[in-house]
């Protein structure tokens, strides 16, 4: 979505509390945010609920008394999504369902096992499984860069990190992914 168009929609939302303007933003982002969410939360019902919550929260923040103005809707909505996913993970971690951090320290053996596992699956699916075996940060940058086509600057806004930092993360994540898929190719 063009950023000027977004800005005028944001203005309408703030000034007139116009639900239709928010509807337009919703149309532009719902699929992206759904992808972002479902990437980490594989349960469909859970993902849908979370997306719904994310948009509602965004609306409430936009029409409420703001301490910080919103310049960029994509950065804003992804940030909300990230935070809410983290909340879900935390809740889960408390229940010891899925380990949240630690994917980066994944043992060789496990990677090997994953690679074997994905052999029989389609290319896309194996990529997905490889991605999901990576740590959150790597997943996010790869998803935002290669799937949603965001620029380094935009990713840095969404993740709240410096551009140079993002560049390094992208580089490392790409390298790791290449290694993972390369291993699969060899075997």
């Amino acid at each position, binding site marked *: 979505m063009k950023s000027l168009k977004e*800005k005028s929609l*944001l*203005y309408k939302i*703030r*000034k007139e*509390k*116009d*639900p*239709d303007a*928010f*509807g337009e933003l*919703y*149309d532009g982002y*719902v*699929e992206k945010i*759904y*992808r972002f969410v*479902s*990437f980490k939360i*594989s349960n*469909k019902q859970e*993902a*849908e609920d979370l*997306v*719904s919550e994310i*948009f*509602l929260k965004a*609306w*409430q923040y936009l*029409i409420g008394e*703001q301490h*910080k*103005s*919103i*310049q960029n809707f994509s950065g804003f909505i992804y940030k909300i999504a990230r935070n809410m996913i983290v909340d879900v993970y935390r809740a889960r971690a408390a229940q010891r369902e899925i380990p949240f951090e630690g994917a980066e320290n994944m043992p060789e053996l496990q990677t090997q096992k994953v690679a074997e596992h994905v052999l029989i699956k389609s*290319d*896309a*699916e194996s*990529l*997905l499984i490889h991605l999901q075996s990576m740590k959150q940060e790597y997943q996010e940058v*790869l*998803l935002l860069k*290669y*799937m949603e086509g965001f620029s380094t600057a935009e990713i840095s806004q969404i993740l709240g990190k410096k551009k140079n930092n993002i560049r390094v993360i992208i580089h490392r994540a*790409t390298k790791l*992914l*290449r290694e993972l898929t390369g291993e699969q190719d060899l075997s």
Partner: protein
Amino acid sequence: MDQKLKEQFQSLKSHDQLTPDQSWVSQHRRQLLQQIGSNTNEAAKKDENFFVRLEKQFASAKSVFIPRGFALAAQRVLTVSLIFGLAGAGWIATVSASYNSLPGDRLYGVKLATESMSGAVTQLGGSQQDVIKKNIDRAKRRSDEIQTAVQKVKENPDNKPKVETAIKDVALKDLGQSLESVSQDLENISDEEVVEVAKVVTAETGKIKKTLKEVKKTLTEDTEGVVLVDQLESTKDIVEVVEKTTKVVDGVGISAVENAVLKKSDDEAVKEMVKVVVEEKITELKESSDEIKKVNQELEEVSLNSVNNVAQPVSGPTSTENGLVLETENNLVDVQADTIITRSSSTAAISDLDKAAEGLATQAPQLIQDNKLGEVMSAVRDATASVKEAGVAVLQAKKVVSETKANTAIQEEQKRLDAEAGILESSTGTIDMVEDVSEEE
């Protein structure tokens, strides 16, 4: 890898797990809008008066479109830049208004100053070739302006003196200076650029020369048939400067080619250029020869006319005002001497020109074939000198023609006066005779 990754990720987009159900999307949208629609409070908005609303509107617009910290700084910057902007706009307007000005216009100086400024910038940052191009463009612009200005003055001679002075003292001077810088820069040009530059310079100087010739034509056609010498003077000055400048233009074009010959005589493009220069020179020689022949013929007619005219009164018995006759007679002798000298010098010039043209036409092709481009160019130089001398002869001849014409006019007037006086004298003579008779009685 990046491209491949992108493709893989794009294919992943349609993966079941990552795609929301469309039915869910539309249903959720409806629900969401309903939910948030009930949130909006219209009541609060109605209570506020217009100005408060307007201010809020501005404030929220500002906070959306401009970053907060930036907004305050921007306000100051905006104010300051508005002030400078207004001053600057005046300057820009003046400069752009000066863009189409001509010699004699009020803004013409601004135009030249602006060009000098951009020229200085090129000199700092551009290559030698850029600087030469810029200067040659500048000269070209001057010649075009002069042509337009001369044409305008011819149609509407109201501010003729002002425009003529501006042409002579400003435009032609600027043209000459631009060309002088070109010829200086030509010496420092690198071997790689020399051919390219020579091409540009010869092409452009050719155009300038053509324009200046037309300017001269416009100026002299304007004066043709006008006998009064003093009105001619100012225009004649310009014509002289125009011709001088034309020679300079020609010289720069030739030195560009000479330069190329010196540095890259084996280049086929240089050979072609030399050929073109030779052809042009031959045409120029012929034109010059034709012009001088025409003037010579005119001179012959005029001087014959004046001799015939003056011959009668001098030998006539009725001319008693000896002082005046003597003066005219002396004048006539001067003019006749001038005519003779001028005619002989122009005849010499004609033979020079014809010889040079013939020499170039017969020898140059062979020399070019033998790759003796240097010799060809020195022949071209000689020919240029001949044309220059011929030009001086033509100017001299034209001057004599106009003086002789003026003298003839005076003579004719004198003759008419003499004739009238003669009639008067013969009648008083009769009266005298009557008086004499009465005295005898």
